């Protein structure tokens, strides 16, 4: 799975936000906020076409976290992305 090209991630002040690009415009209507881990997942899926398993591996390589928690967080993240039609 991969993030659609119609989205970019931006830091505005302290907030990390996913901003849609539609009709050639960067639209600050319909933005989604993410935390640092969410931003990391977004960037990984923006760069490469990854499976859920590969995403888990990348997080475990970069963060000192429990695998069980990582799996749950990634599952939730993907679910939200699917709900918002962010991924192909």
């Amino acid at each position, binding site marked *: 799975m991969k993030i659609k090209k119609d989205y970019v991630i*931006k830091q*505005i*002040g302290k*907030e990390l*936000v996913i901003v849609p690009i539609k*009709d*050639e*415009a*960067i*639209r*600050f*209507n319909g*933005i989604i*906020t993410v935390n640092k881990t969410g931003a990391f997942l977004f960037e990984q899926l923006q760069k490469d076409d990854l499976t859920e398993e590969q995403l888990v591996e990348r997080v475990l390589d970069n963060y000192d976290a429990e695998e069980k928690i990582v799996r749950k967080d990634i599952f939730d993240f993907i679910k939200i992305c699917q*709900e*918002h039609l962010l991924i192909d």
Partner: protein
Amino acid sequence: MTKNKLVLPNHDFFEEVMKLLNQKRQVSLMVKGTSMKPFLDEETEVFLRQFDSYHKGDICLFKFNNKYLLHRIKRVVGKDYVFRGDNTVKSETVEFEAIYGRVTYYMKKAKKHKPWNFNVSLKLFFYRVYLKLRTFGKKILRKKG
């Protein structure tokens, strides 16, 4: 799915908008406030782009007294751009450098609108007459009261 409103710090948000407009990108944002009623309200999404020149009737995003405003150009006097909200009586005068971009079109109730044409100018003219009459009426009522 529920829609939550995220309120970003004004300065940080407009810094980003300005950066994107300077890169010649088109940016859209939701309108805040009522100063541009009846044309723009909080349900309106405006699409902005930076241009080399701005003219009477254009709706522009600009900085005035440290505030970010989206008002219409009332007139251009030399280097000065005089702005006024369609629903306000006060005007703001700024120079070209304070203007970030102009509304190319806006979306309201899923319909695309042009910010300036003959119909808009006509509607604006009558709205201004209505505002003047309303102010006059209020003054009279206050005197009587």
